[in-house]
């Protein structure tokens, strides 16, 4: 009789132990799921933050309006117009290559506006111009690593869909 009682209690003890292990495992799973959820939420928030910048957007806009020294009989081209000229492989009235002028102008404006170096907050930048998905000009300077601010503008000029993107990297 005593042996029987002892056997029952041991069996019950085993059962309770199993229940506790299952309970503990459940708690761990719930905590892990909660942590994963919060972590994914945190990561998603960071991505959105690094995407937009009003200052960089204004820079791209003012670059597109800049009046270049390339002209035809109608007058000087803005950068926006010069992109279309470059795409059509046209030349300026003084026979200079429009793409060369565009490249040089974008390089000089970016260099004057976003000076980079070891003693400055800007570490580098990338300026891309593409028309209809075809890359026309790409200006890259400095180190393209770390935090960045981005601006992408799509404009239509003379029937061409122009995409201008500028990304500036900070230390």
């Amino acid at each position, binding site marked *: 009789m005593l042996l029987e009682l002892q056997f029952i209690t041991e069996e019950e003890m085993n059962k309770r132990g199993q229940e506790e292990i299952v309970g503990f495992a459940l708690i761990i799973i719930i905590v892990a799921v909660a942590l994963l959820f919060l972590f994914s939420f945190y990561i998603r928030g960071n991505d959105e933050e690094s995407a937009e910048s*009003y*200052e960089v957007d204004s820079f791209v*806009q*003012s670059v597109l309006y800049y*009046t270049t020294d390339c002209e035809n009989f109608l007058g000087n081209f803005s950068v926006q117009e010069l992109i279309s000229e470059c795409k059509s492989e046209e030349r300026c009235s003084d026979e200079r290559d429009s793409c060369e002028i565009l490249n040089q102008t974008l390089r000089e*404006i970016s260099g*004057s*506006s976003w000076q980079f170096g070891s003693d400055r907050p800007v570490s580098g930048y990338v300026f891309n111009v593409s028309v209809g998905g075809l890359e026309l000009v790409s200006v890259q300077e400095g180190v393209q690593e770390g935090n960045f601010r981005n601006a992408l503008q799509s404009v239509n000029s003379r029937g061409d869909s122009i995409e201008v993107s500028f990304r500036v990297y900070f230390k």
Partner: protein
Amino acid sequence: MNKKGQMKIQQMAFMLIAVTLLFVFVGIFFIKIMLSEVNQSAESLEEKNALLTVARLADSPEFSCGSAFGTSKSNCVDFDKVMSLSEISDRYSSFWGVEGINIRRIYPAIEGVCTTENYPDCGKINLFSEEGVGVSNFISLCRKSEQGNVCDVARITVYYGGGDE
């Protein structure tokens, strides 16, 4: 049996305390992260707000290009208007509620403060003072010339009262 029961209750109590502590620590960790994020977003909102104020100022009738240079452009400042305004800036000193406004031509970079004698071959216009906290943004600085409309890349800086706020 009583002793075993007590042990079980103790075990359960310890378990509950451990789980509660775990949740509290995890909670504190995420609250800290979220608070730092709130601070960051507050700073970026403040910066964005200041930049928007600068943009709004650049688009105000006293500065903006309007439709004078072809199509209507945003973030475009009429150089001729600003030059005229600089001559009567005393009358506008409290109009925008800012300490000062400064426009600097970035490309092509030209040195020298603009006066009626050297205009348009100059690089900087100061309206009011240059004291306080400055917030700047890029603009197009456009003017009429013999060759037609000419737009340069410039930076407008708006100065707000005192840095000790």
